[in-house]
């Protein structure tokens, strides 16, 4: 068997399964050391404080053991020495689409960015391997004073803002993978929305991994100032490869009083990618943070979008769906910490397991002793579509205030025979009926997405349901 066909077999069929020849200008050797971390920082001409944070984070990463919970056997398969921690494929950040190198542009055109931009988007930042290669901001955003840059440019142009908020929500010592990200981060988005500004259109970024064994460690920081609002959309696709890739991002959201941040993600990594992501937001007084999170691809996802409800009257929502196919484990969930009074939160999690896949919801909600009159509601639904697939739920609820009203409910079931029978009696094939039921199951999630994402997700789920009958 040739190397290519082995690779294809290892990762299975994948609809975005192409890759462009690597065309890197700067690439580090495999493996990680303090020297590599310092070199990355030097190459990016970063201020000293950032180098110091990177080095501290690297030390923490080296000393911290791997998590002893979750899918430990899959985690142990990650070979940190066999990953390239920095790859720069374009010399500088581009602002004009026409100046982006042809092969990179081809890749993005296949992902549909320019079209999406014409129709919908107010800005694009596209992560190509480790650097943002294309970046445009529509004039009206610039006029409103919105800063929308890749993270490296953000650090160069607005060092004071970055210094104030970087690591303020997710400290490097939070977990082993946030430490790794802080040590070697590259790319990602930096957004600042000034006081009272409402960004009407969703802003969007695409991320992909293109080089074999290429870790991708983007860092995103979004700050919504008082009374402002923004909807950020992140989508992931990645080509198929024979060896495992690691994606370990950190996303920090700061919602200042009265602001509103919605962060939507559809993750569709190819089935050899480890997707170990830390996402967390802090909501101040009367602010609102929403995570809309779809996990379709990857080999192992461990992602628990979190919100710290720090200010009185703040609100958090997490809506997530997960699809686990052959060889996949989607270990996703949500964490909400009610630290202030009159805070409310809602978690809705939906998962589907098929072809031996495993879907896990792992969540935590806490109410601190000083947080009076909090309300929270958690709902987890799971469908198991065939034999050998698995669904788990691991919710934790810690309540230390008697005035809190907390509810959690979860159910695991199969597709109802009655529903299938009804749809088939209306002339649909069994396969079509199943796809409709699955799309209906995901509907509370898809209705929260921009329309083209929702359409894409429905098409994707219909493709996944092909061949599932008989």
């Amino acid at each position, binding site marked *: 068997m040739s190397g290519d066909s082995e690779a294809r077999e290892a990762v299975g069929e994948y609809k975005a399964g192409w890759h462009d020849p690597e065309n890197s200008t700067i690439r580090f050797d495999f493996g990680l050391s303090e020297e590599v971390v310092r070199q990355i920082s030097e190459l990016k001409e970063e201020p000293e404080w950032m180098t110091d944070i990177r080095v501290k984070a690297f030390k923490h990463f080296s000393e911290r053991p791997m*998590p*002893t*919970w979750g899918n430990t056997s899959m985690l142990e398969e990650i070979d940190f020495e066999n990953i390239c921690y920095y790859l720069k494929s374009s010399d500088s950040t581009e602002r004009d689409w026409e100046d982006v190198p042809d092969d990179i542009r081809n890749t993005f055109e296949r992902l549909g960015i320019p079209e999406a931009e014409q129709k919908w988007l107010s800005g694009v930042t596209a992560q190509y391997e480790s650097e943002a290669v294309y970046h445009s901001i529509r004039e009206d955003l610039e006029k409103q004073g919105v800063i929308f840059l890749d993270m490296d440019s953000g650090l160069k142009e607005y060092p004071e803002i970055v210094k104030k908020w970087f690591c303020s929500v997710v400290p490097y010592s939070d977990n082993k993978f946030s430490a790794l990200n802080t040590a070697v981060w590259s790319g990602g988005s930096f957004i600042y929305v000034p006081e009272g500004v409402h960004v009407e259109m969703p802003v969007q970024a695409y991320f992909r991994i293109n080089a074999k064994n290429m870790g991708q460690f983007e860092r995103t920081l979004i700050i919504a100032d008082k009374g402002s609002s923004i909807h950020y959309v992140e989508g992931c696709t990645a080509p198929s490869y024979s060896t495992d890739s690691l994606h370990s991002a950190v996303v920090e959201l700061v919602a200042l009083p009265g602001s509103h941040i919605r962060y939507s993600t559809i993750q569709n990594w190819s089935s050899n990618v480890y997707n170990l992501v830390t996402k967390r937001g802090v909501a101040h007084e009367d602010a609102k943070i929403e995570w809309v999170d779809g996990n379709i691809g990857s080999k192992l996802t461990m992602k628990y979008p979190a919100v710290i409800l720090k200010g009185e009257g703040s609100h958090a929502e997490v809506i997530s769906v997960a699809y686990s196919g052959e060889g996949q484990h989607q270990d996703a969930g949500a964490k909400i910490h009610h630290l202030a009074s009159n805070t409310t939160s809602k978690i809705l999690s939906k998962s589907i397991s098929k072809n031996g896949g495993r879907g896990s919801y792992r969540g935590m909600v806490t109410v601190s*002793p000083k947080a009076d009159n909090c309300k929270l509601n958690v709902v987890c639904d*799971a469908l*198991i*579509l*065939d*034999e*050998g*697939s*698995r*669904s*788990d*739920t*691991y*919710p*934790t*609820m*810690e*309540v*230390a*205030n*008697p*005035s*809190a*009203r*907390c*509810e*959690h*409910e*979860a*159910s*695991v*079931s*199969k597709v109802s025979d009655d529903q299938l029978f009804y749809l088939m009696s209306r002339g649909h094939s069994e396969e079509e009926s199943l796809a409709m039921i699955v799309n209906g199951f995901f509907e509370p999630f898809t209705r929260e997405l921009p329309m083209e994402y929702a359409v894409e997700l429905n098409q994707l789920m219909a493709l996944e349901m092909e061949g599932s009958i008989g």
Partner: protein
Amino acid sequence: MDSASQYLSMSEPDKSNHLWKYTPWRKVHPTGKITEIPELASATLSLSMMDGSEVPPGVSLVRGSGGDLDLSMDNALTNSFLHAMSNSSNWLLIVESGFRLESPIILDVQTGEVASVAHVSLEIGEMADFELVTRVSGESDWFGLLRTGNIGGGAIFNDVLIGLQENGTFLRSDSLEIGRDAQVRAGTVSSGSERTKSDLRYKLEERGGGIKVLGSILSAESMHLDHHIEIHHEAPDTFSRLSWHSACGGDSKTVGTGMLQVSKGAMGADAGQIFHNLLLSDSAEADSIPELEVMENDVVGCGHGTANGPIDDEQMFYLKTRGFDEKEAKRALIAAFLNSTLSEMGGESLHEWLVGELTQQLEALHS
């Protein structure tokens, strides 16, 4: 490997393990030195009817050998530790096949005045139909109770444990295997003691078996009551329900962790668990982790839920308009909350007896 070697071969569990997240092992170990297996006194066990009379033929309590250590339900740490310590305190409760009795049998466990331990092996015969109340009392500052055994096919067994100790630590582990078409209700009424770590595991290993696990827990002062309940569905057409009610006052903390596991091949399994927590004071805390692991797609349903809240203002208002004062109304609502699981634990006479016991505890809470 004997149970002592088994225990000593294991490392201390860390907090990432939900079973030990809220109550570290060293806090419930009798000496806190986890590499020790201390020699403890034997508890005193006796069987009687509710009125103190002798039990009828067909049921007996004898000294036993303890048997082999069964770790098929993955509770190696607690079970091997308790098994190793109870060499001189093994008891065998045998109930003959077809034994039937309407009145509850009391298994009185006197923990004594010093740290003590007991291992009770239950051998419940096929088609037996009766109620057993295990009443734990005494002044001991540490007590360990291991209950293992089998419930025979077709048996109907109401099993209630009531903890009346006022002090010390109570470490409890139940590992019961439930036979074909057997129907079990396993109730826990409070757990007494200042610190409880209770690990209850039930295996539905044959077709048609069913279990209802019920908890009616009242915690006060600085009590720390941690209950873990696991139900393993390993055979087709098995049924389980877990309903756990905790009322939590003072500076106390209650923890309820549950695990419903449906193995591959357990078609038609119907499993549900729910934890309800009533918080009665500002400094009380209630934590819940109801977990599900489902490896079979052809199930009737698997679900879980948890709800925390204070005493309902509208219910308080209603009772006050009917002439209750604040204290009476609160006490009535707590009693009703706990009674909703208590009333399912057994027949009428058992229920009356349990209400009497719980009322005394409620009085103590409000005195």
